[in-house]
């Protein structure tokens, strides 16, 4: 039987760990709520952007832009991987890296020149471990990616695409579906497949009322374009790309906090169970020792009486 004192010591250390994981869980919960609010606030923009694009398309403007059309030949490809700066968040980093690595090997086989860009310390070490040195690293994105910071990166991609030094951009990140589900995905952001930014279905009330007032006909509002539908479209396309990239960063931030929350909840529960088990063994060991001592005393008394 184990030494009761050693058992007690172990139990104490597990208790300390449980305190830490509980605190981390609480912090992750708070951060998750904040990140979620930010992601939610961002949908207002994407929704309106989608509506704007729809109205433009309805007006008969031809949706044509170099960013929308794919290149016939892909010579330069970039893979951007979004991971966390910190660990202790379950399979979050591992899953993203695994998905990204798969695409990376595939890209390397297909495309002559590939560039790897990784955000987050975990991703950087993960890829270095697999023998891939990231060409570009970012570690300044935490749980609150700001649009300004993302815009810098987005602008660089747009410029590179326009200059012809980039033909394809893939982004690997953890997509946030709901609190219980996040999946690692690799999405191709350049060339932009379609203009619609993912968002919930736009509210129909406004459009319907507008139809009633502005024109008698259904589904048509005659817009005046300043300067012209085409020129606005020229501007909408890059803006929509920037927002899409920003949304990836936001999703990654939210998913990270969720993953950490879940992982730390599990850790806290496990620690509790371990404490229970250790307490039981400890009590049993202590009782065993007492019984042993009692038996010894009784044996001694018996021997004296004889």
């Amino acid at each position: 039987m184990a030494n009761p004192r050693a058992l007690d010591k172990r139990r104490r250390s597990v208790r300390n760990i449980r305190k830490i994981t509980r605190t981390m869980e609480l912090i992750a919960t708070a951060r998750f709520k904040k990140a979620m609010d930010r992601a939610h606030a961002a949908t207002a923009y994407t929704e309106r952007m989608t509506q704007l694009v729809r109205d433009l398309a309805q007006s008969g403007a031809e949706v044509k832009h170099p960013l929308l059309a794919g290149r016939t030949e892909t010579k330069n490809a970039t893979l951007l991987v979004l991971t966390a700066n910190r660990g202790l968040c379950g399979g979050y980093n591992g899953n993203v890296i695994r998905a990204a690595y798969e695409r990376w090997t595939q890209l390397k086989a297909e495309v002559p020149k590939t560039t790897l860009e990784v955000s987050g310390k975990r991703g950087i070490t993960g890829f270095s471990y697999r023998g891939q040195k990231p060409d570009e690293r970012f570690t300044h994105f935490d749980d609150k990616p700001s649009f300004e910071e993302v815009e810098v990166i987005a602008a660089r991609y747009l410029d590179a695409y326009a200059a012809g030094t980039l033909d394809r951009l893939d982004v690997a990140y953890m997509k946030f579906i709901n609190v219980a589900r996040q999946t690692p995905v690799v999405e191709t952001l350049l060339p932009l497949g379609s203009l619609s930014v993912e968002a919930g279905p736009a509210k129909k009330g406004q459009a319907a009322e507008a139809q009633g007032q502005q024109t008698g006909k259904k589904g048509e509002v005659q817009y005046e374009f300043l300067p012209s539908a085409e020129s606005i479209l020229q501007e909408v396309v890059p803006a929509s790309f920037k927002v899409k990239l920003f949304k990836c960063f936001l999703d990654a931030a939210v998913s990270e906090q969720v993953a950490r929350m879940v992982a730390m909840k599990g850790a806290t529960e496990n620690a509790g169970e371990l404490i229970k088990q250790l307490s039981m063994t400890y009590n049993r060991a202590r009782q065993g020792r007492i019984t042993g001592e009692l038996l010894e005393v009784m044996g001694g008394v018996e021997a004296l009486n004889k």
Partner: protein
Amino acid sequence: MADHAAPTTSGTLTCVVVTPEQTVLSESTDFVALPLFDGELGVAPKHSPMIGRLGYGELRLGRGSHAKRYYIDGGFVQVLNDVVTVLTGRAIEVSHLDAAVAREQLRTAQGRKANTDELLAIRDRIITQSRAQIRLAERGTATARH
């Protein structure tokens, strides 16, 4: 999240300013002045539906000295049914603008190399942006003193 305000019957406009990060403001007013790409545009209630490209400059809500003023960093505007929706990268209240910072930005931009068309375009953009910010920030302090 700010919801679409119901279109009002008469006399007021709803102005909604959204950036990718948040809804900056959602308010009703009687007049909105927008910085379009080629000059200012005033929108009063019952304006015809319009989609326009924005430049860098001042967005004003209301008239006269009570007007709320924002610096708008490009983007688009959609006017439909007395709702003015402004989609922009940044919207900063004029009182929060810093002329000194903008001036510094202008100086560094002017020192930038621009040997290709793209670089030239970037430099021009930054110069117009910072000039608009300086203009607004200085006017903001001037009116505050009165």
